[in-house]
């Protein structure tokens, strides 16, 4: 039987406001327990919430970034349930009238897998609403007791809900990654998944391929890494299919993923679910936003990843993959463009690489390659963010310029890059100090080649008798003799002539 997987995601992203959504307490992560909880967060008798409008501004920014309709009037409601880390006995959230209404979409890039090619897909955003985070229950450090830390209580969240538009764990992860990139891109969430700033709930169901009705879904809660999201969905899909194929029935329930055992476990069934008794919070007025307010936020939005990605493809002829990687984070895209601009400002020179249609496109491609590969892996190894790169975009452009004008080969450039990374100075200074300038003097190259040929008569004879593969051997020997500095194109050409005899 052919099964189809149906997934919808609900993502909680903490809005990076300075203070909490309904109190003046700080939202910073990692303080001593209960040092960032004021009277309002503790729900002392008599305290009242006051809405922090900075949260609305960020939620509206998100809504506009995905092209959703913004509700001019949204309403906070109380979701009532008892839990020790929920001090008021209710969570203030939005239900009937969320700040971000329907109409949003997020285009995702789904990478190729063993069975298929890479593709793009639009995921519909159903809604996004603001709410407060709960505190944390700490079970580990207390024997026979539970500790309560209310520092997180009242941290603003935006909960972003999709339609059940995803059909595989790969699509779900691609969506989560794209959303993660977007919320950081527009500066509303720090995206720190370890600290719980960005966490997903996945609604998963399966159905026989070709049917229209949705299967019974299970909600898997609190997935705080892309890997867990993927694994939890994969486990859950297997579980549901096996259950049905064995003649069973999926029960609607909330499940938890246990990463240690790589399985999901039932938390509570639909029957056990709380009746949350939602009703409009009488302590808070409806939130009203004007057209002017929305337009002001719209006009301040940065170029969005999707638009930038398309521009990189069109303007710089970058392959879609490169454009996608470069636009995965705004800082990375900015670094790339700054480097490229700096490189082009040094003059494009003449095109020495015939496989590229223009010097500009060549410049863009080598810049993309260096940012995506050499720079990114160096940053990764050092656990640094792009904004903390020891090599500035201008410095990298200085290095790329020397590749472009054939002062050094790509291979030597890696050595120069390493030296620059270690703080040994600008590209030109390193090249000068280490004597790494490419040898483009044909006389000098001929001399090296003559010596190599003379020293290897056997290989020469074999080559001349038709063993073409030995060309590589001679290139290697000659390059080694030049300490890597010979201009590769020139070397190839001269060697070909000399070997031909």
């Amino acid at each position, binding site marked *: 039987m052919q099964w189809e997987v149906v997934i919808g995601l609900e993502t909680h992203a903490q809005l990076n406001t300075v203070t909490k959504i309904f109190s003046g307490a700080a939202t910073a992560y990692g303080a001593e327990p209960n040092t960032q909880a004021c009277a309002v967060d503790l729900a*002392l*008798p*008599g305290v*009242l919430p006051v809405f922090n409008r900075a949260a609305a501004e960020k939620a509206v920014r998100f809504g506009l970034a995905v092209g959703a309709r913004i509700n001019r009037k949204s309403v906070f409601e109380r979701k009532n349930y008892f839990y020790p880390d929920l001090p008021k006995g209710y969570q203030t959230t939005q239900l009937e009238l969320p700040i971000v209404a329907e109409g949003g979409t997020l285009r995702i890039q789904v990478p190729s897998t063993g069975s298929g090619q890479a593709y793009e897909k639009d995921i519909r955003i159903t809604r996004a609403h603001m709410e407060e985070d709960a505190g944390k229950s700490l079970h580990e450090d207390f024997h026979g007791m539970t500790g309560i830390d209310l520092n997180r209580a009242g941290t603003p969240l935006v909960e972003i809900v999709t339609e059940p538009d995803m059909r595989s764990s790969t699509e779900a992860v691609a969506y989560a990654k794209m959303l993660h990139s977007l919320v950081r891109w527009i500066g509303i969430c720090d995206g720190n998944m370890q600290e719980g700033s960005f966490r997903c709930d996945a609604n998963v169901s399966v159905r026989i391929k070709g049917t229209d009705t949705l299967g019974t879904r299970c909600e898997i809660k609190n997935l705080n890494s892309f890997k867990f999201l993927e694994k939890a969905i994969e486990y859950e899909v297997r579980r549901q299919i096996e259950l049905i194929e064995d003649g069973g029935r999926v029960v609607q329930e909330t499940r938890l993923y246990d990463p240690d055992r790589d399985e999901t476990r039932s938390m509570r069934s639909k029957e056990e679910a709380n009746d949350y008794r939602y009703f409009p919070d009488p*302590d808070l007025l409806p939130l009203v936003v004007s057209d002017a307010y929305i337009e002001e936020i719209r006009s301040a939005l940065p170029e969005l990843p999707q638009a930038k990605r398309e521009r990189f493809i069109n303007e710089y002829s970058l392959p879609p993959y490169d454009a996608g990687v470069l636009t995965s984070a705004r800082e990375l895209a900015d670094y790339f463009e700054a480097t490229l601009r700096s490189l082009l400002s040094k003059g494009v020179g003449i095109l020495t690489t015939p496989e590229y249609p223009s010097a500009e496109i060549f410049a863009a491609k080598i810049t993309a390659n260096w940012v995506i590969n050499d720079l990114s892996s160096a940053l990764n190894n050092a656990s640094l963010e792009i904004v903390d790169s020891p090599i500035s975009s201008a410095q990298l452009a200085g290095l790329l310029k020397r590749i472009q004008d054939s002062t050094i080969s790509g291979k030597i450039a890696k050595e120069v890059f390493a030296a620059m990374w270690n703080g040994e100075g600008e590209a030109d200074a390193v090249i000068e100090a280490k004597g790494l300038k490419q040898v483009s003097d044909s006389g000098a190259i001929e001399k090296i080649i003559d010596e190599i040929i003379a020293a290897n008569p056997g290989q020469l004879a074999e080559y001349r008798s038709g063993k073409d593969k030995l060309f590589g051997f001679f290139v290697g020997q000659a390059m080694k003799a030049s300490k890597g500095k010979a201009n590769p194109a020139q070397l190839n050409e001269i060697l070909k002539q000399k070997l031909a005899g």
Partner: protein
Amino acid sequence: MLNASLKELSALLAGKKISSFELTQTFLKRINELNPALNAFITVDAEKSLAQARAADERIAAGQADLLTGIPFAQKDIFCAQDWLSTCGSKMLANFSAPYDAHVIEQFNRAGAVNLGKTNMDEFAMGSSNETSFFGKVKNPWDVSRVPGGSSGGSAAAVAARLCPAATGTDTGGSIRQPAALVGITGLKPTYGTVSRYGMIAFASSLDQAGPMARSAEDCALMMNVMAGFDSRDSTSLEREKEDYTRDLNQPLKGLRIGLPKEYFAEGLAADVAKAVEAALSEYRKLGAETVDISLPNTRLSIPVYYVLAPAEASSNLARYDGVRYGYRAPEYGDLTDMYQKSRAQGFGPEVKRRIMIGTYVLSAGYYDAYYIQAQKLRRLIAQDFETAFKQCDVIMGPTAPTTAFKLGEKSDDPVSMYLSDIYTIAVNLAGLPGMSVPCGFGDNGLPVGLQIVGNYFAEAKMLNVAHQYQLATDWHQRMPLLHGEG
């Protein structure tokens, strides 16, 4: 001195005829003597009060006194006051010492007033007789076998018995006006949003409003000048210009149009109350006012609507009392759920539990539309009744309560009959309008009767004027109950 108005006390203090210390001591002594019979106070802390009095005396000496500086006020125990027990009349908060001041307390402190103590009240302000308090029933100073009304019964009894010059109250469905009527004092529930609810322990957020309880309209006006004003810590606080509530006190009433809702003079109104109210209306006619017959057709709906909405909000507002962070926790329990259940079962009294259950029910899936949503729609109809009425009149008058004070225990076992004692006051809260009760005579049994005055939104100054002119012409508000224990 016990009968001196706030203005007179202010003059005595300013003229150094008396110190705040002496004045405070005088009232503390009287509380000491009479409170055991009345049970009007939950907390009296002479040391704290006298320290404030000394500070007030210094301020007066330094020439920096405001009008109310040095005058002692009793505060309903619903207001959080720093380092004072703030119990809300409940076992749940019997041990709760507030770490901060409510806006109302702050305002009195800023004015240099003295906190004379925290007054008794129905538990979480739920009640019309002050019999639901964990700290015992409050007695009516006119007849200690009778209730003082509720929920601000402690403040009402304290003012009537001259245990304090004036007090604060809160009014969710009549909790200032009904006890004011039953003990013969003057009380004002302002327009919703006029006095900040910050630090006032919530019962039903969309209805709760604090106001003054005093012996005269003039005293209420002076207290309003201190209590009212925008507070950014309460999102429902209204951002308006500060006003002087005494400004219109002396305006003549000639041409005043008084609306008389036929529904307020119908079945259920005791004859002696009706008689006293009629007499008051005659007095108003003498003062130049005219009366107009009006109708508030949805009055009968106000009690059912109120007993859906107020418990709904209360069930959620009181969820924070879970025994986790402060307040009462059951001494013995098994798991978490057991701790919640036992703490709440033991910490709340029966009326509070009843309302939490009603509120939980009306918000439940499947009932929400039929009850909560329906009640919200009717609430708008009730407000529209008043909107229509105020096209025909300037103020609305009628009885505050259908009867004079009833016997302690008389209605304790019959919640619906208890709820009906707020029939004339509740609609005013649902509409968010200001309402007052003014003493207007005595019933057959010698118990006080209150005249209710309802004004349009923000018409407090007008209502205080209407009440003040009546009090210039009558002396009902100056009658003082004779109390045992007096020297």
